[in-house]
C-alpha cells in the first residue's frame, strides 16, 4: 500500500512540475534562511569559547542615571563596581572590564588590536584556554603590575619564532611583560574577546564619581540556577543602597544583571526597556511570526491550488473505487511527503551554503567581525521547522481533502467547489 502510494506520488509530482517546484522551493528556501539566520542568533547567545558556560553567567553592561530633566546613559562606572558590586558575596566569581583599542603602526601600516582591561577574577569567570604561561592574579592587579596576557594572533605577529613568556611588548607607548598566551577567542564571544588582556588598574579608568557613568561591563558567574536568582536579588539591594547617595531626585537603573539572551535583546537606545525585556521578546517573536506568515500562507495556498488542480483526478479515482478515507489519506500523504522533501532540501541547502561558502556566510552574517566563529546548523531548530511545516501542510490539506472526499464523484468531476 505505502509503496504504491509512494510510486503514485512521484508520478503525480513529476507531471505537475511547476507546483512541485513552487512547493519545494517555498519550503526549502524558507527553512534554509531560518537555519542560517539562526546561526547568527545562536552564535551571539551561545558563542562557546571562553563563554561556553554562559548559561551560568549574568551580564550587566550599562547604567542609566535619570532625573526629571536629565538622563545619562553609559557603561558602568568604576566606583560603583569597586565600592559596591565587586563586594557582592553571592556570585561564585565576578569579572569586570572595559575595552580600549590599540593601533599599532608597523611596516605594514596600521594594525588594529583589541585590548581588554580586566580584574583578576576575569580568569575564573571565563574559561580561557592557556597555551603558555598563566593569567595575572589579584596581587598583580592590585599592584598595577605591567603584565599582559596575549592571544595567539598577537603572539604570531610579534613573537613568531621565539619564546614568548617573559618578553616585553609595547602597547600604546608603554611596555608590558607577557605572562600568558591564550588560544584566540572567536570574535562572537563579545564579552571575553580581545587580543590583549591587562590589569584594569593600569589604565585611568572612568566613572570615578557616583554621579558619573563609565565604560565597564560586569559578568557574574553563578554556581547554579538558584544562585543566579540570589545574585539578581543581591544586585538589586545594592542598587537601592546606592540611590540615597546620588544627587537629589536621581534614579539609577542597570541593564541587567541578565542572561545572554536578554542581554542580546536589550534595546540600547530605549531606557524604558531597562525595566525588563519580556515585551521586547514578544515583539521580536511577533515580528518573526509575521515574517513567517508569508511563507506559511504561500505553502497553504499552493497546496490548496494543487488539490483544486487535481479535482478531476480525484473525481475519477472516486468513480473507480477510491474510498473517502483512502482519498483523504492519499492527499495528506502526498502533501506531507512533498513538504518533508522540501524541508530536507532546505537542510541540505543550508549545509551546502554554510560549509561550501563558509567565508561568504561569515562575512555576510558578521561583517568583518567573524574571525574564528564556527558555523554550525542547529538540528533541533531544523526539527522544529520540519514539524511546523508538516503541521502546516497537514492543516492546509485536511479541510479541502475532507470536502473533496465528501462530494459525489460527479460533483468533483465537474470541478466541485471547495
Amino acid at each position, binding site marked *: 500500500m505505502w509503496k504504491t502510494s509512494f510510486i503514485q506520488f512521484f508520478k503525480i509530482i513529476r*507531471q505537475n512540475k511547476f507546483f512541485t517546484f513552487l512547493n519545494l522551493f517555498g519550503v526549502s528556501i524558507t527553512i534554509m534562511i531560518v537555519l542560517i539566520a539562526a546561526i547568527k542568533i545562536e552564535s551571539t547567545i551561545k558563542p562557546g569559547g571562553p563563554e561556553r558556560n554562559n548559561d551560568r553567567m549574568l551580564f550587566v553592561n550599562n547604567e542609566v542615571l535619570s532625573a526629571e530633566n536629565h538622563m545619562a546613559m553609559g557603561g558602568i562606572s568604576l566606583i560603583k563596581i569597586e565600592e559596591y558590586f565587586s563586594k557582592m558575596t553571592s556570585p561564585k566569581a565576578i569579572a569586570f572590564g572595559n575595552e580600549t583599542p590599540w593601533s599599532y603602526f608597523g611596516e605594514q601600516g596600521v594594525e588594529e588590536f583589541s585590548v581588554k582591561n580586566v580584574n583578576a577574577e576575569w580568569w575564573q569567570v571565563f574559561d580561557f584556554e592557556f597555551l603558555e604561561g598563566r593569567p595575572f592574579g589579584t596581587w598583580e592587579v592590585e599592584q598595577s603590575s605591567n603584565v599582559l596576557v596575549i592571544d595567539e594572533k598577537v603572539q604570531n605577529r610579534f613573537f613568531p619564532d621565539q619564546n614568548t613568556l617573559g618578553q616585553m611588548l609595547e602597547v600604546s607607548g608603554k611596555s608590558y611583560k607577557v605572562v600568558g598566551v591564550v588560544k584566540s577567542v572567536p570574535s562572537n564571544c563579545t564579552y571575553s574577546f580581545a587580543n590583549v588582556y591587562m590589569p584594569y588598574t593600569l589604565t585611568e579608568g572612568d566613572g570615578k564619581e557616583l554621579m558619573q557613568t563609565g565604560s565597564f561591563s560586569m559578568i557574574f558567574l553563578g554556581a547554579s540556577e538558584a544562585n543566579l536568582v540570589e545574585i539578581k536579588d543581591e544586585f538589586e539591594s545594592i542598587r537601592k543602597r546606592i540611590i540615597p547617595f546620588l544627587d537629589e531626585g536621581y534614579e539609577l537603573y542597570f541593564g541587567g544583571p541578565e542572561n545572554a539572551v536578554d542581554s542580546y535583546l536589550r534595546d540600547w537606545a530605549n531606557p524604558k526597556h531597562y525595566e525588563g525585556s519580556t515585551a521586547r521578546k514578544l515583539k521580536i517573536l511577533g515580528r518573526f511570526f509575521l515574517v513567517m506568515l508569508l511563507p506559511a500562507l504561500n505553502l497553504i495556498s499552493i497546496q490548496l491550488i494543487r488539490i483544486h488542480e487535481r479535482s478531476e483526478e480525484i473525481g*475519477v479515482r*472516486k468513480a*473507480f*473505487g477510491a474510498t473517502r478515507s*483512502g482519498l483523504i489519506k492519499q492527499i495528506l500523504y502526498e502533501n506531507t511527503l512533498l513538504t518533508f522533501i522540501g524541508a530536507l532540501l532546505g537542510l541540505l541547502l543550508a549545509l551546502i551554503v554554510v560549509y561550501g561558502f563558509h567565508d561568504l556566510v561569515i562575512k555576510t552574517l558578521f561583517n568583518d567581525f567573524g574571525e574564528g566563529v564556527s558555523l554550525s546548523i542547529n538540528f533541533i531548530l531544523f526539527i522544529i521547522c520540519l514539524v511546523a511545516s508538516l503541521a502546516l501542510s497537514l492543516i492546509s490539506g485536511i479541510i479541502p481533502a475532507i470536502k473533496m472526499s465528501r462530494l*459525489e464523484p*460527479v460533483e468533483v468531476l465537474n470541478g466541485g467547489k471547495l
Partner: protein
Amino acid sequence: MIQLQNIQKIYQTRDIETIALDQVNLRVEKGEFVSVMGPSGCGKSTLLNIIGLLDKPTDGFVQIDNMLINKQKDKKLASIRNEKVGFIFQRFHLINSLNVIDNVELPLLYRKLSSSERRKLAQENLERVGLSHRMKHFPSELSGGQSQRVAIARAIAGNPGILLADEPTGNLDSQMGHEIMEILHQLNKVGEMTIVMVTHDENLARQTNRIIRFFDGRQVN
C-alpha cells in the same frame, strides 16, 4: 442486473429547481446491451451517473445485482463502483499526469493485487482495445479515438459486470465511432458485460438490444 424504482433527481440551484429525472422505472437484465436516447438536457447523463453510483438520486431506489444501493456506507459504495461498474465518460476524464498504462491500472489500485498483476491485467485490456503500443504515452499525446479506447480499457480493467458509456462516440468521427462500437459489441458478446450506452446516433442505437427513450426527465416508449 440493474433495477431503478421511482427515481427522481432534482437539482436545486439558487432560484430554479430542475427536475432532471422524474419517476423513472427501469430494469436492465444481465448481458443486455441497451441504449439511452433523447434530446439534450433530458437527463440521460444524470441517469447513467445514478446507475454508476457517481451521484445520488433525490428519491427512489437503485438496485445492482439485487443489492439495494441506498444507504450503503461509503466503503461499500466504493467497492461496488470498483468491482461491479465500469464507467466511460463522454469527456474521457483520463488523468493527465499518468501515462496510458497507469490510467488503465487505476481501478486495480483499489484491489488487493500485486503491482505485476496489475500491470499484466492493464496490458491485457489495452490489447483488447488495440492500444498496447501506446502504453507509455500520456493522454495529451493521444487522439480522441485513442483516448476513448484507453478510457474503455480502464473501465473494463477490473472486469466489471456492468459497463456504462456516456456518449462514448460523441466526440469521435463516424469511422472511430464504429470502431468503438465494435469493441463494445465484443465486450457484450464475448465478455458478457451488461452495457448501458447513451447516444445521439440512431444508427448506433439500433445495433443494441433495446432503446430507452427519454424526454424531459421522463421515460417515453
